[in-house]
């Protein structure tokens, strides 16, 4: 029989339909991330890229559809628009920043 390599994993209790099963987790199960609900006030990068321009400042009033910044990704310039009317609470980016996917770019009040 083949031996499994790597660190020894401990049994967990897995609940399926109110029954708790004694079992080992696999790597993906251990690495799964908790779900965070979408916050409409936070504008995030829909894909990784670099910030080419930022059009807004903290405290500035914006309307739904106002241009917030340009995210250059995969050789395309994507103009990021405000999802709703509001006031800029925080700008987490500056021009030239490289951002990952789901990075919180700009927050509205």
């Amino acid at each position, binding site marked *: 029989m083949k031996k499994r390599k790597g660190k020894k994993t401990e049994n967990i209790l*897995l*609940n*399926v339909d109110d029954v708790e099963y004694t079992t080992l987790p696999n*790597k993906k199960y251990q690495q799964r991330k908790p779900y965070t609900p979408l916050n409409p006030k936070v504008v995030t990068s829909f894909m990784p890229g670099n910030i080419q321009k930022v059009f807004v400042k903290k405290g500035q009033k914006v309307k739904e559809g106002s241009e917030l910044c340009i995210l250059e990704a995969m050789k395309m310039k994507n103009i990021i628009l405000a999802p709703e009317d509001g006031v800029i609470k925080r700008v987490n980016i500056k021009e030239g920043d*490289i951002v990952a996917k789901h990075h919180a770019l700009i927050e509205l009040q």
Partner: protein
Amino acid sequence: MSIKQKTLDLKQRMQNAIQGGGAKAIEKQVAMGKMTARERILSLLDPNSFHEYDLFVEHAAKDFDMDKKHLPGDGVITGTGTINGFPVCVYAQDFTVAGGSLGLMHARKIGKIMDHAMKLKIPIIGINDSGGARIQEGVNSLAGYGEIFYRNTQASGVIPQISVILGPCAGGAVYSPALTDFVFVVDKISKMFITGPEVIRSVLGEEITMEELGGARVHSEITGNAHFFSESEEECFQKIKKLVSFIPWSNKKKAAPFPKKAPKSKQFRIDNIIPTDPREPYDVRDVIRSVSDDSEFFEVQELYAANMVIGFGRLNGETIGFVANQPLILAGVLDVDSSDKAARFIRFCDAFNIPLVTLVDLPGYLPGIDQEHAGVIRHGAKILYSYSEATVPKVTVILRKAYGGGYIAMCSRHLKADFVFAWPTAEIAVMGPEGAANIIFRHEIMNASNPEETRQRKVDEYKQKFANPYVAAAHGYIDAVIEPAETRKFLLHALEIAVDKDEKSPEKKHGIPPF
């Protein structure tokens, strides 16, 4: 020139060509811990069985001074040979020649040997070790990849296709292995990815090593792109030889029969493997080994989605595809990865006339937001699709719990299993007793003076009445409730009488599985 002189000239030409990229490049290859392309073919095939073709093929590229470059064999070795006497077509990319880069003639050689395999109806084995497209050949290099992908797809389900990743295999090149049936990888040697660490660093600013991004372990444990993980090239070739012994040459044949052998019943005692408490884990592979010839089980994708076990064994000398829930890992639940893993294996077995034996012990589907969002509906449907579609003999043994949708999915009578057997320990029910009692007797439990006591009593009542194989047997959903020790006997008989099974699918061009 006399014949002798002409023969000498041929020998000289051959000698030059088989040097590949030359001594320096070979030295580099060895320094990377890799065998040369020729050594690989020779260690994979039976001694003296390799016959090479297209040794003198050369590229015809002109741009970027390519006309001044001589690339022996255009960086790939192709030919035919045997593995344990079974015929195969084989190609191996030669990294010592222009980094094994794929140009038009390189691709044509691969296409030609694939065409041979298709005509001769024998397996094709491709050894990948290439820096990728030969950029100097531009769009011709892309054409080369496309022609290979097309052939991979045409050959799918007709002849077994095996890919061996023994070096880099990056960008578009990964899609040929991805289209084939089995992918072999070797620790620290195999590297597969669409975009490499450098692009990721420059575009995303994220640091990752090649090994962490697309090494052998990642593809064996996380992505599921690889089916067999080895520590060394030598071990990898041994595994390929073993796999070839289990599969037929083509979809027109059965796998070659082996001498019949009894299981090692002293080592694998079928009566002592499973705990009767359905919440306790055990290794389902021991059950497979307790019924298979010589207790042999050749596991596929051992490290990926280990909550589902798939692989080959034999019953009375005939190759069998085993599919089993693994209570040891995640209680053996169905989830996105395990459904995907099993479904593909079932389709391979069905395409290549390998009967399926399914061992069932699962609580259902894995609950979780991540699973729902990862598409457990669509992926879970694959297993229903592939079992329903399969027309090879299908025999199912329910070992312990078979609850809800999981029961249906695991080759139940309703998906047209030929035989469904159940052990006396089987619990075939719409869900686990606790969950069922909580729903059915909710009001009674809530309104009771002692809810916890009432709940427990109702759970026990439900268990007593429904947590057994007899309710399903009463409806004819189970063909026989059998003693564990009789399992092999029942399997052998079922497969023996199913030998001429003839079940036709409705006429169609092809189905539309939930890919």
